[in-house]
């Protein structure tokens, strides 16, 4: 068991002046399940591979516990990794795949068999121990890859999108299995995914990456409740938060004829005159009388438990003067969550009022969250 520390770690790929991972500072606690999330190409895999020793560290350092591993070869890091394509050894049986590390470490045969059996039992792989990987289903292969990792009892688990090759239903099942298995074993885990739902449901903490730069690392509740900047606000949550550019005047920020008051602290932190007002779909109060932002229901998405309304507003929703070219991008649509089975109809006129506690304010220029 161990902590994992990234200390200003950077990685430059040949022929690229921009680092794939830029000065990453991250501390993973002992036994913690940390999820790295971000859009494709943001450097998640590179981060994980730097930790595993499969990719060099050009600047900074990486430590596991007190041990500096920056320049250690992969075999000496005591890390087990689950790859996206599982990377099982095709010429070995399931049992040999799972036991390969123990064999390399020259563990006596009887003890090894016991450990393999134990892992196989945990993962329901006992009937398949003598099969070759080619004769397994996708889900079974995924479990063999997990088995190969847990049988080792390593200091750290690294998992790079281990569920992305499974179908949707199996993915949700396996998600909970992996999360509970990790809690039971208590091994420090770094898990990479591009799926924010996976990140929010599995992680003790979630680190959001963009273009190789760490945006925010917090608990799922922290990320959802207090996104540190516009990127995190838009990335976390589904459907995404409504982000509305607004001009600030003496009273506050103006959106669709409504005024959102700013605290003195927010005013002084503001660099320009514009803010972005963020309201999640569940942060609106729907009113049928005229008080609020007038809108019309365009699409009703019924999920049974919830209902999502896609409402068009008048063009003046954003109070910022937009260039004509940007006209198309200025938001006219607001997503609103209503209780499931509500009676909203397409074409219905509604009035939207942001709930006081549900408003996020961001500096339009820097994209940073204004103090609460």
């Amino acid at each position: 068991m161990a902590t994992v520390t990234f200390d200003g770690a950077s990685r430059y790929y040949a022929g690229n002046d921009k680092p794939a991972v830029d000065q990453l500072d991250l501390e993973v606690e002992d036994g913690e399940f940390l999820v790295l999330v971000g859009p494709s190409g943001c450097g998640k895999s590179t981060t994980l591979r730097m930790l595993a020793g499969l990719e060099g560290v050009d600047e900074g350092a990486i430590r596991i516990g007190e041990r500096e591993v920056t320049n250690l070869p992969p075999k000496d890091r005591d890390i087990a990794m689950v790859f996206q394509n599982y990377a099982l050894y095709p010429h070995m049986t399931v049992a040999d795949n799972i036991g390969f590390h123990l064999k390399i470490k020259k563990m006596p045969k009887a003890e090894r068999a016991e450990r393999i059996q134990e892992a196989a039992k945990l993962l329901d792989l006992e009937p398949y121990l003598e099969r070759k990987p080619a004769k397994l289903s996708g889900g079974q292969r995924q479990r063999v890859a997990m088995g190969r990792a847990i049988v080792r009892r390593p200091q750290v688990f690294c998992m790079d999108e281990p569920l992305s090759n499974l179908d949707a239903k199996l993915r949700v099942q396996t998600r909970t299995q992996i999360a509970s298995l990790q809690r039971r074993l208590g091994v420090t885990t770094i898990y990479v995914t591009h799926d924010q739902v996976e990140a929010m449901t599995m992680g003790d903490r979630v680190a959001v990456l963009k273009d190789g730069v760490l945006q925010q690392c917090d608990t799922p509740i922290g990320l959802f409740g207090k996104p540190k900047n516009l990127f995190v606000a838009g990335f976390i949550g589904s459907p995404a938060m409504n982000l509305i550019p607004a001009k600030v005047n003496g009273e506050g920020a103006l959106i669709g004829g409504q005024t959102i008051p700013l605290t003195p602290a927010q005013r002084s932190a503001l660099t320009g005159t514009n803010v972005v007002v963020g309201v999640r779909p569940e942060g609106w109060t729907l009113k049928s009388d005229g008080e609020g932002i007038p809108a019309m229901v365009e699409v009703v998405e019924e999920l049974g438990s919830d209902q999502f309304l896609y409402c068009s507003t008048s063009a003046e929703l954003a109070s910022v003067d937009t260039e004509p070219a940007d006209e198309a991008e200025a938001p006219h649509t607001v997503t609103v969550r209503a209780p499931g089975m509500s009676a909203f109809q397409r074409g219905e006129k509604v009035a939207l009022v942001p709930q006081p506690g549900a408003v996020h304010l961001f500096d339009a220029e820097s994209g940073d969250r204004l103090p609460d």
Partner: protein
Amino acid sequence: MAREKKRWGLTIVGTVVALVFLFPYLIMLVGAFKPRREILQVPPAYLPDNWEPGNFLTMWDTPETPLPFNLLSTVVISLGGTALALLAALPAAYYTARHRFRLRLPFLLLVLVTQMLQPTVLASGLFREFVELGINDTWLAMILVNAAFNLSFAVWIMHSFFASVPNEIEEAAWLDGCSKGQSLRRIMLPLVWPGIVTAVIFTFIACWNEFAASLILLPTDVNQPLTVALTRFIGQYESAWQYVFAVSIIGILPVVALFALIEKHLVSGLTAGGVK
């Protein structure tokens, strides 16, 4: 009914085609057992009146060529050439499959281009080179030549096998505690084995059959391989055809045996990427 007829037709056509191809071999086989005077007999007979298995014994000791040395020559040159080609091709194939370096494609194409140069074209140049090096008319010279001419095929076929093994499999082995050498031996080698076998056998057969360069580079009869020795039996005034046939049989036996052995491998080897 119609389908039955069609199958019969196919069998007959197949048999005829096979016979056409096998006929020279049959002549060779039968000829090897004929006494000398029966070979030149007019009109020729298909089967000998007197079977003469003694050809296979007397051929080892003739004034034309020291056949035991020739066989040894072929074996040494083939084994040496194959071993050397493999030794050079294996690391080259692994490296080009695993590393993207700047001159990777030019390198691979250059390797391919060497395949287009026939030994005959280069023989006189090689002859001078070996004279300079002082290894003219030696087995070593022919081992080098054979290895060089078979390198490109060996590199390419093994390259495609190495390339078909995902990087992550090797990386998984490193994380499982393997050194680079261990992962090569325990993971990569078993996975690319069919490719190696294919490359080795092709190279060996090519070395075994090589003729043109040996003819030019090996003037001394005890150094010459079977392919060259064979020509010694064909003289200006008379030819010992029974020995030509008998030696040919000895010469093609290993080739036939190897092909039979790898027939199955061959298909997967040539359609490479057997590992998923």
